[in-house]
C-alpha cells in the first residue's frame, strides 16, 4: 500500500498500522533528502500550505514550515495574536477567508481539543493537526516513533515509559495510541493526580515510582509539566516533583544496560530532566528535532498525493 487511508491527519486514532508504517518509511527517504547538499524536492511546488497557529509554538511551527519549503510548497503563516481572531472572528470564518486565497492544505495548532476534527468537517481543505489542546499531537508521536525505530531498529516489543504530566499532554496520548498500534509496550509514570484515571483501559501500565519505571523500560519519554494548562495544584511543590520524577544521571547510572531518552521539548532543565541527561549520550532529543522535519515532509507529501490537480477537496 502506498496511500494513506485518511484525507486528513487529525490524530493517531484515525491512522491504521499500515498508514503509520507508510509515513515512517516515507520519512526515511526524506531524511536522506535532508542530508543532501540541496535539501529540496519539487513535489509540492503547485500547492500552498497555510500554517495556522492559535497557540504558541517554536519547533513545531518551524519544523512544519521547513518541511513545507523543502517540498517546494508556497507557505503562508498565521498566528492568532495580532489577527482578526482578537476582533471576534470565528475559527471557521478565519479559515474560510484564508482558503478563499486558494490554499490547499491547512496545518493547525489550536488550544481546543477537537478543533482539527471540527475544522475538517466544515471547510474544504486537507487538515493537519499540529496539536489540539490536550487531545492529540500526531506528528510529534510519529517523529518520536521514528526516532525510537531509528535508534533501536524496531518498535514492536519495545518498552516505552512516558513520564510526567500525562493528564494535560497531547504528546502523551498520541504516543500511547501510536505505540500500542505498532506493538510496543507502553507505561506511564507521574504523580497520581496527573495520570488520567482510565488510562489502564488503553492497555497502559502505570508506575508510581520513577525507579520502577526506569527499571522496566527501554525508552523513556520525559514530558514537560504544563503549568499553563493546569487549573489547580496537582502536586505539593516543584521541589518534590523534581525529587520524585526528575530524570537525573544518578538515576540512569543506577540501572543495568542503557536507556534511550526522549523529550518533545521545550525542556525545563533541572525540572523533569537534568542538563547532564538532556545533553548526554542517552539523549536523542536533537535527533527528534531533525527527524521531525522528515516526518512532517512525509505526512504532507502523502496527504498531498491524495489531492488531484485542480481539485482542492479531499476525496
Amino acid at each position, binding site marked *: 500500500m502506498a496511500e494513506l487511508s485518511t484525507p486528513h491527519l487529525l490524530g493517531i486514532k484515525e491512522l491504521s498500522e499500515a498508514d503509520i508504517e507508510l509515513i515512517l518509511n516515507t520519512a526515511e527517504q526524506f531524511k536522506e533528502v535532508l542530508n543532501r547538499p*540541496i535539501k529540496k524536492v519539487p513535489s509540492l511546488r503547485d500547492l500552498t500550505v497555510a500554517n495556522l497557529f492559535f497557540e504558541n509554538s517554536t519547533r513545531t511551527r518551524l519544523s512544519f514550515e521547513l518541511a513545507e519549503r523543502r517540498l517546494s510548497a508556497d507557505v503562508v503563516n498565521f498566528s492568532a495574536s495580532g489577527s482578526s481572531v482578537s476582533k471576534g472572528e470565528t475559527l471557521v470564518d478565519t479559515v474560510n477567508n484564508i482558503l478563499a486565497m486558494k490554499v490547499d492544505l491547512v496545518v493547525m495548532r489550536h488550544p481546543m481539543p477537537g478543533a482539527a476534527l471540527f475544522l475538517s468537517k466544515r471547510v474544504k481543505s486537507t487538515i493537519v493537526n499540529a496539536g489540539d489542546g490536550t487531545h492529540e499531537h500526531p506528528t510529534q508521536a510519529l517523529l518520536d516513533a521514528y526516532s525510537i525505530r531509528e535508534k533501536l531498529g524496531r518498535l514492536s516489543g519495545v518498552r516505552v515509559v512516558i513520564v510526567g504530566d500525562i493528564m494535560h499532554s497531547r504528546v502523551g496520548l498520541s504516543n500511547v495510541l501510536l505505540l500500542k498500534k505498532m506493538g510496543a509496550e507502553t507505561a506511564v509514570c507521574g504523580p497520581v493526580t496527573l495520570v488520567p484515571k482510565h488510562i489502564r483501559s488503553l492497555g497502559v501500565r502505570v508506575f508510581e515510582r520513577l525507579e520502577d519505571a526506569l527499571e522496566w523500560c527501554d525508552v523513556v519519554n520525559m514530558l514537560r509539566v504544563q503549568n499553563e494548562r493546569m487549573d489547580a495544584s496537582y502536586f505539593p511543590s516543584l521541589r518534590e516533583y523534581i525529587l520524585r520524577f526528575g530524570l537525573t544521571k544518578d538515576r540512569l547510572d543506577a540501572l543495568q544496560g542503557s536507556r534511550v531518552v526522549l523529550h518533545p521539548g521545550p525542556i525545563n532543565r533541572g525540572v523533569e530532566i537534568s542538563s547532564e541527561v538532556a545533553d548526554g549520550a542517552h539523549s536523542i532529543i536533537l535527533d527528534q528535532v531533525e527527524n521531525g522535519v522528515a516526518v512532517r515532509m512525509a505526512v504532507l*507529501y502523502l496527504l498531498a498525493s491524495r489531492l488531484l490537480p485542480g481539485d482542492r477537496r479531499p476525496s
Partner: protein
Amino acid sequence: MGNAKQLLEAEEVSIILHRLCCQLIENHGDFSGTALIGLQPRGVVFARRVVKMLREDYGCDPLQMGLLDITFFRDDFRRREAPLKANSTRIDFIVEKLNVVFLDDVLYTGRSIRAAMDAILSFGRPRSIELMVLIDRRYARELPIQPDYTGRRVDSIDSERVVVEWSEEHGKDGVYLTRSERNG
C-alpha cells in the same frame, strides 16, 4: 511469460552487457572520474550486473556505484491512478565534478530520466551525465532525451510493455514484449 514475445534470450543479454561494458571502458578508462548510478527501482539490477561484469571480467576496480530514487522529482505526482512509492537512494560519494552514467532497464518517454537529472543535481554539479539503457523503446519519447549507450532498440506501441527479467530475481535473464498498460 505466457503470451509474451521474447525479444532477447539470456545469451543475447550477456553479449549485449559485455558490449556495453566495453563501450563504457572505451569512454571512461579506469573510471577514476566516473560514477555509475542505477535508477530505482528497475535500473538497479542492471547497474549491479554491469558493475559486477566490469569488476570481474574487465578488472575495473575501484568503481563508484550508487542508487538514485527519483520519486520526489517526478512530474506525474498527483497525476497518476496509482500512488507513487519512494525507494531508497544510496550515493556515498561526492558527485561534484564526476562523470555520471545513469543506468536504467527501459527508456520509454524520457520523463524518468528528466526527473533523474533533477534529482542528481541535488547532490552537486556533475561534470557530465550520460545514459545507458538495456532497451530503448524508440519513437515513444515525450522529451528530447536520447541514450548514449543502448543495448537493443525496440519498436513498440503504447499498449505494449517491455519487461526485463534478471536471473537474480527470475532465475533467468530475458526481455519480453507483452500487451499491457504503458511502462517507463
